[in-house]
């Protein structure tokens, strides 16, 4: 453990991991929605730093770009559109009973993994191994080209799905069979009516 602490990168790891965990913690517990999102930013930024530490520069910057740049903004939009309460709000989380159950489950999960890892890998050393972006590209378009295509299809599906879901369908309310988007929303409405 001592020589673990003598390595500068490990200090860096600590400096990164601490805010990360704290941010994640606050993110899931904060009573202010916006704060919650901002704490997520900290976590994600820290994870990006961690990737840098591991030499995965491209992934790091992708995280910064995609997550911090785009996803977070999406969240903020989502919050605003759904008129989530912006101030302190006690009702953001479930009752303490649920919290207890959740804490138990997640704690158990954590414990399980930790045990498994320590048992499995012990003190296996890893060495930071900077990967060049060109290598990533090479690999992605040679070895992983099929997954890449699949992901692109997924993205396309998500794109179309997002549009279909989010747009206000101009179809007449009664016309539930004409198109499925209409059917779905009409269906939801009907269900809502029952609830």
């Amino acid at each position, binding site marked *: 453990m001592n020589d*673990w602490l003598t390595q500068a990168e490990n200090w860096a790891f600590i400096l990164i991991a601490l805010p990360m*965990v704290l941010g*994640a913690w606050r*993110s*899931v517990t904060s009573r202010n*929605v916006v704060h919650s999102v901002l704490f*997520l930013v900290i*976590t*994600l930024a820290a*994870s990006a730093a961690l990737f840098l*530490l*591991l030499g995965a520069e491209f*992934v790091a910057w*992708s995280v910064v770009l995609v*997550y911090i740049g785009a*996803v977070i903004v*999406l*969240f903020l*939009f*989502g919050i605003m*559109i*759904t*008129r*989530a309460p912006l101030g302190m709000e006690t009702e953001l989380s*479930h009752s303490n009973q*649920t919290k207890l159950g*959740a*804490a138990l*489950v*997640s704690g158990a*999960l*954590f414990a399980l*993994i*930790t045990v498994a*890892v*320590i048992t499995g*890998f*012990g*003190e*296996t*050393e*890893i*060495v*930071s191994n900077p*990967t060049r972006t060109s290598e*990533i590209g090479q*690999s*992605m378009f040679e070895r992983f080209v099929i*997954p890449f295509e699949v*992901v692109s299809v*997924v*993205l396309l599906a998500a*794109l179309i*799905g997002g*549009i279909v879901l*989010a747009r206000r369908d101009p179809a007449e309310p009664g016309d539930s069979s004409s198109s499925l988007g209409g059917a779905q929303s009409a269906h*939801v*409405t009907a269900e*809502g009516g029952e*609830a």
Partner: protein
Amino acid sequence: MILGQFIILGAALFSLGVYGVLTRRNAVLVLLSVELMLAAVNINFVAFDTYARDVTAGGQIFSLFVIAVGAAEVGIGLAIVLLIFRNRESANVDELDLMKL
């Protein structure tokens, strides 16, 4: 650096994510928690990639896929939330008992 430290950190993050998913009422925050879990997964991928010294950098690439899929997921998820909100004037998950017949 040892491999374990990263995996454990990932596990912590993942657990916190699970906690969030399970406890949050607001749907947006639920999605947010899912992102935490994905971040944890990424950490694992990259850590193992470094460990394995994979010449094809498969771990990193898959973390990229995860990022992509995660982004797509957020998009879709938020769209659904939006749709629900539009129909029900609420984004609280506990009011979403649609799955109950």
